[in-house]
C-alpha cells in the first residue's frame, strides 16, 4: 500500500515517455478517455456505466448492481494506493471496455484526471 495517486501517475508517465519523449500527463485527455464510448462491449460501452459520472459518489456494477466505491481518492482514501490492484483493474477493464490493453500514457492521464480533476 505504499503507492499514491501521484507516484502512480509519475511511474506511468516515466514509462510513457520512453516511447513519447516529453510526455506530460493530461487530466483533460484522461477525462476524454473516461467518458469516451468505445462501443466494444454491449453492456459496458464506457467507464461511466459502472463508475458513474460523478467521481465522488458510489458507482454501481451495470450487470450485478454491486456497489462500487467512489473513484475519487479525495473521498475514497484507498483508491490508487496499490500498483498491483490498479494494474489488475486496468488489465480487466481495458480489455473489456476499450477492447485492448491500455497504454502507460492513457493510465497516467486517467489517474491524473481522477485524482486531480480537470
Amino acid at each position, binding site marked *: 500500500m505504499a503507492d499514491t495517486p501521484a507516484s502512480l501517475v509519475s511511474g506511468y508517465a516515466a514509462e510513457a515517455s520512453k516511447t513519447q519523449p516529453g510526455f506530460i500527463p493530461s487530466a483533460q485527455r484522461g477525462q476524454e478517455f473516461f467518458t469516451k464510448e468505445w462501443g466494444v462491449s454491449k*453492456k459496458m460501452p464506457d467507464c461511466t456505466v459502472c463508475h458513474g459520472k460523478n467521481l465522488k459518489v458510489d458507482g454501481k*456494477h451495470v*450487470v*450485478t*448492481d*454491486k456497489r462500487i466505491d467512489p473513484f475519487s481518492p479525495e473521498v475514497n482514501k484507498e483508491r490508487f494506493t496499490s500498483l*498491483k490492484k490498479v494494474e*489488475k483493474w486496468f*488489465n*480487466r*477493464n481495458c*480489455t*473489456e471496455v476499450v477492447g485492448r490493453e491500455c497504454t502507460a500514457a492513457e493510465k497516467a492521464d486517467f489517474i491524473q484526471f481522477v485524482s486531480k480533476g480537470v
Partner: protein
Amino acid sequence: MKFITANFSALGYLAIFLSIFSCSVVYAEGGKLSALNNPKWKEECGSCHTAYPPRLLTAENWQRLMEGLNKHFGANAVLDTKDNKEILDFLQRNAGSGINHSASSLRISNTPWFAREHREISNTTWSNPLVKSRSNCIACHVNAERGDWSEHDIRIPGVKKRDDD
C-alpha cells in the same frame, strides 16, 4: 471400577453435550453459509458481486470457473496465478458436493439447490429492477454481505414480509 464408571459417565455427558451443540450449529441455517472467511476470496470475488459461499458449487465446478476467469460470464475477471490458486484452494476445501450443487453452466443459479431454495420466488420478483439479476443476492438477502443468509433476514422488494410461522 466405580472410578472408571464415573469417568465413563462424565465422558458420556460430554458426548451428549457435544452432539447437541454440533446439531445446533448445523441447524443455524445462516451460519452454514457464512462460517467461512478468506480475505482474498472476499475482496476479489466480492468486488463485482457477492462473494458466493464455496459450498454452493462443487470442487470440480470451482476449478473450471477459476480456470476461465478471463471470460467470466462475459466479463474479464482475471487474477494473477498466486491469488487465483489461493482462492481456488479455499473454494475447493469448502466446496459443496453432489448434483445439487453442480451446474454445467457453472452458474450457482442453475444448480438444483438454487432452484429448490428459490422455488417460491415469482417471475415478477425476478424481473423487478430492484432485484435485477440472480447474482444480486443482497437485493433480498439484505445482510448477505455480512455473511448472514438467515431466512429471517430476507426482504423481497415489492413483497410484504411474510409473518414467521
